[in-house]
Structures are given as structure tokens and as C-alpha cells.
């Protein structure tokens, strides 16, 4: 009977008919590679009708549109808070969009938009507060009420950028711990953190976007949802496509929507998402036969505070999932941020839905534009560089001068910091008023500057962005940074005072 597929193609209608008749063969993307290896591609095409995928991880770019219904007298909400988390009210009168990462005005990063969404899905009541200036048609100025999800007219999840095709793994080459959206990164590349389900990941199983695109039904947060189209920042041309997805929040489950907080970074939301892939031709067979061994990503150094962070090496998901990898000759522990157990649950649930005939498959009504790529921001006001604000008149001292000379220079130079140079005029240390005072107060056999200077000097360069320099001052609890050229010669000083002038309230000196 299956001979009619010898044309090496299967239509979506044939697949849907099989689903309705209860005859469809549905497998997860984890099972598919072995089936293809065993049967061969053509037999696998005849045999398998649908491959289900799944992922469960942090998807910051998530949120929901709400319509609360009209109050009496009616209000045109201008600013809206749900449990003290501000939602965007710049749309029609009683509509708002809450973003998952928005933080509470009262609880900081312990509660945010994601928690509001999880509370609503879990059946808990939330407090709505809104204000308005009042108009002829909407006279009311404030409203406060407690609502359950069932009280809303609409609650529609919309995730502008989800389901990354590929996401970098992260490590940290600096000597301090970093708290990032990739989790806690230990110093000196002490660990590697990654995200994504690898073999089960939706876009990794359809990298040519043959069956993934606008209008395709999906699993989203435990409910049936839909792909709107490409997500924001989607970059198929570079292998980093994303999807915009939507679904009915009122049908979702806290099993697949979980609020979370990354320490030192903020609130995010874990979302379960899966796409059923109809096996329509050999291309789909081949792409769903992919294994963790074939899927690679880059390990990126998050210790570098710029947009273009260096990639230390390429790595496969098989290696990442093994828990240990090799980086620069050292063995490093890896761990994921997304849950593979939950990703499996998503793919299995979706498989059940298809087998039970409770979801109809569809091909994209509009395809992903494979030539599209994202660009960095065009900055018309360039971020100020250290060069523009540093002090260029710098009083220095050499390491073998006596401490008394340092004291004199500090007095005369009206400064609290003296960069210390060696015979070649290279920076080798720094002395502060405090160091000198201490040495004078407790006289011992230490007489030269080299005996009292601090050798580990935190420094900056003329081209460094001032925000990064400001972070260095903050973190090290210091008030001045020597500015050095590539030869380590001091060409300026950057002080808290310079930064205070420039950054004002944002960076208080």
C-alpha cells in the first residue's frame, strides 16, 4: 500500500489523512537518526510520517498580550502594572503587553513579567493597577482590581524571538566570576555553559526551513500554538535563524512555562516549545537524521565585554552533553541551562498529540527568507572612549626613587595616584597617598617606591569604552586607572572625577 510513495514525496494531505486514520508513524527527532541508519533514507521516508522536536530553556524574548475588559466608568490605561510589574500600555485602552524580563518595582529581580505569567497560568490572582489622564470618552483616571486569568478577555502569548537555530556556549577567561544570561561562569574558563536541546532542537532539524515557517502549528507552553514567522534578529544566512511564536496563554501549563532568575542578570522565562515536522521528502529525512555529533556551536568568551566576543573553539552537542570537554589542553566541566529531560517531554507530548489526531499539520504559508542576516546597531553617537576624557598631564615616579620623593610629588601634583615606571618608562606599579602615608607612619627599612607600590595595576587603554573603564573602577573599588599604550607606557590617567563629569548620575563618582 505504501508503494504509492515511490515518487519520493509525500503530500501534507496524505500525512494528515494518516494522522486522522490513526495510521501515522510518528517518532521523535531523537529516534529518527537510528531509523534512517537502519532503513535507509527512502524507506525511512515511506515509513515515518512525522518527526517531533522539542526544547525547554530560557527564552527572554517572551511575553503576552492581554485585554482586561472595560471598567465602569471606562479608563484608557496609559500605564499599567500587574503585581507591580509594568506592562506596556501604549496600545488600545484596556490592552497591554507584559514582557517576561520586566522586573517588579518592589521586588527587583525576584519577581518579574515571567512570574506574572506563571502565576496567571497557575490559577493565582494578580493585582492590576492602571493610571490615565482621563479623556471625554474615558473619564476614569485610576483603577485597581484583582484578576484571575479567566477574567481576561484575551491572554495571548507572543514570543518575538524564540527557538534559536543555534546558540553559543559560554565560558569566561577573566579572573573573576561572571553572572550572565548564560548562567554563572567561573573564572579562568572554570566551566562551560550551553543552551539548546541539540538533536531535539526544532530548527536544527530543519536548517533549510523546508517545513518550518509562518502558520505551522506547534507545541508552546503546553498548548497548541503557531509559528508567526521569522523572529526578530533572525539571521538564516549565518545559521542563526529565530522564530516568532504565539499561543493561547489560557491553555498553557506551568509544567512548560517557568519563571526564573539568573543571578546578577535578571528575570527570564523558561518555555517549552516543539515543532512537528511532516516528513514530506528526502530533504526532511536527511535533516531530521542529524545527531548531536553533527551539531556544532562555538564556545565564546563572555569575559570580553564587547559585542564581538572571540570564539575559543567549535564544539559538538555530543561533547557538550558529555559533561566534560577539552579547552586549551585543560579538562573543563560543562552544563546546560536548558533542560533536556523537559525537551524530551515536549517532543513526546507532541508525538502523542499527533498520534491521537489532536493536531493538524500544515506547511508554511510563507517561507523563511534564507538570505536575511542581522546587522549590528548603527551608532550615530559613538560611545565615548577613554582617550576623550582622560587626564593627559600625568605625574609619574620611577620605582627606585625614595618614598619621600613620592610624597612630594603627590603633594605638588594634587593627585592621589602615582603610576610607577621602570627604567624603560614602562608601567610596573602604582602608589597612592595611602601607601605613602602608611610607609611614613611606620618607618622600617622600606625606603624606595618599589617597596611600597602595588604591583598588580588595573589599567585601561585609550580606545576602551568609558563604560567598561567605569566597571573596572567599580569592581576593584578604586578611583583611578592609568591609561597605557600597547608598549605599556603611561599616556594618561582616568579618574572617578573624569567619569563623574561625563556619565553624571548614571555613574556616581
Amino acid at each position, binding site marked *: 500500500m505504501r508503494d504509492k510513495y515511490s515518487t519520493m514525496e509525500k503530500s501534507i494531505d496524505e500525512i494528515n489523512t494518516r494522522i486522522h486514520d490513526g495510521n501515522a508513524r510518528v517518532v521523535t527527532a531523537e529516534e529518527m537518526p537510528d531509523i534512517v541508519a537502519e532503513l535507509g533514507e527512502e524507506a525511512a521516508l515511506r515509513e515515518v510520517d512525522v518527526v517531533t522536536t522539542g526544547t525547554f530553556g530560557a527564552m527572554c524574548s517572551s511575553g503576552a498580550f492581554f485585554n482586561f475588559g472595560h471598567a465602569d466608568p471606562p479608563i484608557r490605561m496609559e500605564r499599567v502594572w500587574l503585581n507591580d510589574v509594568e506592562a506596556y500600555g501604549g496600545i488600545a485602552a484596556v490592552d497591554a503587553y507584559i514582557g517576561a524580563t520586566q522586573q517588579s518595582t518592589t521586588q527587583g529581580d525576584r519577581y518579574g513579567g515571567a512570574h506574572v505569567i506563571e502565576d496567571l497560568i497557575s490559577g493565582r490572582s494578580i493585582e492590576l493597577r492602571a493610571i490615565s489622564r482621563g479623556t471625554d470618552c474615558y473619564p476614569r483616571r485610576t483603577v485597581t482590581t484583582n484578576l484571575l486569568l479567566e477574567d481576561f478577555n484575551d491572554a495571548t502569548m507572543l514570543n518575538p524571538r524564540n527557538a534559536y537555530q543555534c546558540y553559543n556556549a559560554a565560558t569566561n577567561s577573566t579572573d573573576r566570576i561572571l553572572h550572565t544570561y548564560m548562567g554563572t561562569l567561573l573564572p579562568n574558563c572554570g566551566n562551560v555553559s550551553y543552551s539548546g536541546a541539540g538533536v531535539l532542537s526544532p530548527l536544527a532539524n530543519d536548517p533549510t526551513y523546508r517545513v518550518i515557517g509562518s502558520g505551522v502549528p506547534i507545541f508552546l507552553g503546553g498548548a497548541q500554538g503557531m509559528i508567526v514567522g521569522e523572529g526578530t534578529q533572525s539571521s538564516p544566512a549565518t545559521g542563526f535563524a529565530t522564530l516568532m511564536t504565539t499561543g493561547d496563554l489560557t491553555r498553557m501549563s506551568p509544567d512548560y512555562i517557568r519563571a*526564573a532568575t*539568573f543571578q546578577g542578570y535578571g528575570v527570564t522565562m523558561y518555555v517549552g516549545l516543539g515543532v512537528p515536522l511532516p516528513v514530506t521528502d528526502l530533504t526532511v529525512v536527511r535533516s531530521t537524521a542529524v545527531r548531536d555529533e553533527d551539531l556544532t556551536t562555538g564556545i565564546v568568551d563572555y569575559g570580553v565585554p564587547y559585542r564581538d566576543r572571540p570564539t575559543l573553539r567549535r564544539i559538538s552537542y555530543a561533547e557538550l552533553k558529555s*559533561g566534560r570537554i577539552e579547552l586549551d589542553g585543560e579538562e573543563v566541566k560543562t552544563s546546560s*541551562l536548558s533542560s533536556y529531560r523537559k525537551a524530551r517531554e515536549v517532543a513526546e507530548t507532541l508525538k502523542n498529540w499527533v498520534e491521537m489526531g489532536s493536531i493538524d499539520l500544515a506547511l508554511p504559508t510563507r517561507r523563511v527568507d534564507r538570505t536575511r542576516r542581522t546587522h549590528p546597531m548603527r551608532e550615530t553617537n559613538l560611545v565615548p572612549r577613554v582617550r576623550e576624557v582622560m587626564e593627559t598631564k600625568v605625574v609619574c615616579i620611577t620605582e627606585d626613587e625614595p618614598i619621600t620623593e613620592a610624597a612630594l610629588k603627590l603633594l605638588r601634583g594634587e593627585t592621589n595616584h602615582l603610576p610607577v615606571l621602570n627604567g624603560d618608562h614602562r608601567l610596573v606599579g602604582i602608589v597612592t597617598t595611602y601607601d605613602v602615608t602608611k610607609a611614613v607612619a611606620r618607618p622600617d627599612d622600606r625606603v624606595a617606591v618599589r617597596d611600597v607600590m602595588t604591583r598588580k595595576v588595573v589599567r585601561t587603554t585609550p580606545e576602551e569604552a568609558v563604560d567598561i573603564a567605569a566597571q573596572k573602577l567599580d569592581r576593584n573599588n578604586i578611583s583611578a586607572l592609568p591609561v597605557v599604550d600597547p608598549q605599556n607606557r603611561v599616556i594618561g590617567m582616568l579618574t572617578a572625577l573624569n567619569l563623574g563629569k561625563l556619565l553624571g548620575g548614571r555613574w556616581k563618582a
Partner: protein
Amino acid sequence: MKLMVSFSRKKVSEPIIARAVMDTGVLINVERARIEPTEGDVLIDVPDESARTVCMKMRELGATVSVLRDAIIRDEDECVDCGACISVCPQEAFSFDSDWKLSLDQPRCVLCGRCIQACPHGALSLQK
């Protein structure tokens, strides 16, 4: 068995760990130590059968000793088995089982607290 030994310099003038090892002959494994100028606490691991002897010795030397059990607790409802805690633990106390479920090997834990901070879901806490 893990014991938390706390002392203040006023009461304890000797290096008490070394003293206790010498006097009792029990090998003491120091897992974590916080030593301040005037006080300190040290988390030690000793064989179960010697715990009593060590406890008594430490108290004799002027320290307070408490027995630690089940240090880190995991709320199974909050945990999503992501694994973010695995690579930050210096003791490799966490791992995945064959079904990608998280498991915790309590006896390895030295209560550094790193995992509590690293868990995005607030699933880990310290049982006092």
C-alpha cells in the same frame, strides 16, 4: 560525618585541628574554612565511628561543634533538571542520571553555597 567547628580566639589559642588530630589520632579532612582575626569556623569530615571522639576533643579545646546532615535541599517541584548547578559545584556533587534527571550526592557537598546562587529556579536551599 560532617562537623561544623566554630571557635573564637579568646577561648581557643592553639591550632585546634592539628591538636585534635594529634590527640585523637583521627584523620580529619578539612572541607571548608573561614578564619577571621578573632573567630572562625571550619567544616570537617571525619569517619562516623570517630565523630564522638573528635567532637569531645574539640569541645575540650574550647570550640563549639555541631553535626551537619542533609545540607543542600532540592525542591523537586521547582527543579526543571536544567543542570545549571552541575558545572559550578567544586565538589561535583550534582550529575544527571541516564534519564537526564538531576541527582545530588549529598556527602560530597561542602556547603560552599555556589549552587544555591546559580540555580535559576530557586530550587536549592540550605537546610539549617
